[in-house]
């Protein structure tokens, strides 16, 4: 129960940092060997194994490591990152959290954490907005008594993205 609460807190704290644009602090939640991917999703027929499909192996919208995520954050700090300057108003809605059994690894105890995500994005003074829905498949690792995001795969629910860029984090 304690672990569940700790991991839920991580997800909610993360959402708060992303919604408030506190990206340096957000980087602090990431493991140094983090892998962060948003694969391209395509429309496919239902496979013989059933379930959902169309998650492409070969191409992503984002395929990041710690250095490249830090680069994206540093860019936002230059004052010339027009895609997010003025910043989008973002709201991360995190629901349906499922926490797997933690497993010991050489780098620390790791737990699979799956969550549903809805991102609301509004820019400028216009009344319109975009919504992106996805499932996040995370691995969180216990390091020095806290949890760090070690791996995230974002399974988008859109094939063609309904927004003009992905200048934010999932």
């Amino acid at each position, binding site marked *: 129960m304690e672990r569940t609460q700790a991991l839920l807190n991580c997800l909610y704290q993360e959402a708060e940092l992303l919604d408030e644009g506190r990206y340096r602090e957000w980087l602090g939640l990431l493991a140094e060997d983090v892998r962060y991917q*948003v694969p391209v999703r395509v429309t496919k027929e239902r496979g013989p194994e059933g379930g959902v499909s169309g998650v492409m192996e*070969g191409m992503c*919208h984002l395929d990041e490591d710690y250095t490249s995520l830090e680069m994206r954050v*540093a*860019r936002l700090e230059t004052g*010339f990152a027009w895609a997010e300057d003025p910043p989008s108003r973002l709201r991360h809605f995190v629901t349906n959290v499922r926490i797997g059994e933690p497993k010991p690894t050489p780098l620390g105890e790791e737990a699979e954490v799956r969550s549903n995500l809805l991102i609301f994005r509004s820019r400028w003074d216009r009344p319109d907005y975009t919504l992106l829905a996805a499932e996040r498949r995370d691995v969180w690792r216990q390091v020095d008594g806290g949890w760090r995001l070690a791996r995230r795969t974002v399974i988008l629910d859109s094939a063609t*993205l309904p927004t003009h860029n992905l200048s934010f984090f999932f």
Partner: protein
Amino acid sequence: MARVKGGVSSRLSRMLEELQAGLEDGLVPAWIFNDPELFELEKEKIFSRSWVYLAHESEIPNPGDYVLRYVLDNPYILVRGEDGVVRALLDMCRHRGMRVCRAELGNASHFRCPFHGWTYRNDGRLIGVPAEREAFGPDFDKGQWGLVPIPRLESFDGMIFGNLDPEAPSLEEWLGDIRWYLELVTKRSPMGLEVLGPPQRWVVNTDWKLALETFLSDSYHTLMTHRSLIELGIAPKDAKYAMYGEQVHIPGKGHGSMVVGAPPGAKLPPFWGYPEEMLERARTSYPTREQFETARETRILLVTLFPNFSFHNPIRKPDHKYQGTVPMLTFRVWHPLGPGRIEIFSWALVEKDAPAWFKEKTRLSYLRFFGSSGTFEQDDTEIWSHVAHNAASTQGRHLRFNYRMGLNLAPDPNWPGPGVAYGLNFTDANMRNFHRRYLEMLLA
């Protein structure tokens, strides 16, 4: 609205006259970037008669492989038949119009319509009609009812183009001298190119011409739009880096290229920073010595084909800490969805025979700088959408944009390639050429 010749309303023909009158003077009215009536005319006069990029042959290497692509709102199944021939079949059942292809990509020996069950082989032939005899009688000729192929389909070095106009000139003629610049990429290796997966697709509220102009001619925007990358030390320190090099257009065709070299004093590796072994292969695979010499001095190359295809091949690296450079190549279709609205199809490509480590690094260079999340490109889409919004505003639409950069610049007589070249990229020459062609097609 009063209709005049060619189905053009008097309102629109007055507007086109305004475009024509201003163009040679470097003035382009804002309204052309977001007008519903003009968009209808573009559909009819431009996109129904032009060679439109559909796919790279490496997307469908095996018999039965298919991808779904669009010309305007028409869905085409681009499929390699069992005979190895690539066809583009309108995804519309000949019985009552249902779509017969149920995925964006895959492999299929046949396509079966989910409405009443007509079944087509992957070469388009109708081979199955449920209760054929009882329903349609003994004389039903299935041969008459195959999927409709696109009127024209041709390819150049693995790049597959379609045309809705059966009378269109050949692709080769359409391309003309821009082939020399296309080949700088398609013939860099004797093995040619391959895609690194399916395209990223996303929607931007802008006009296809605004997006295209950036890739065709606007190196001037890089110093401000992409200033964040200069600040981070990812783009060269000299903010005017994209000014150096040559801007070339093909008169009468609308196509153009920007061939950017290294800023004076900058230590950038030759040949985009491609691995030495690739440079060696390029030495013999380029058709001419001039192309090899040009390629060796190139750090950024863009080619835009009229009407809505671009590629971008810059020197790059996978992140800001990486020592060294890893270039990337992206193909683009600026797919028009409506006035002020496009869908971008964006692919990453690489030479088939590039080393594996390079393929992975170039994929990352692409993802982190261009495409849907690219740190360069995301600022372009932000800006394009505001310009398109203003171009439809009641006051703003009457403003005339300034396309006067380089109006008095003299062509470079020493440029080794074909077309009209200028020894400075800060010029709107390619755009003025594009708009001349654009207007010519609208008025034809």
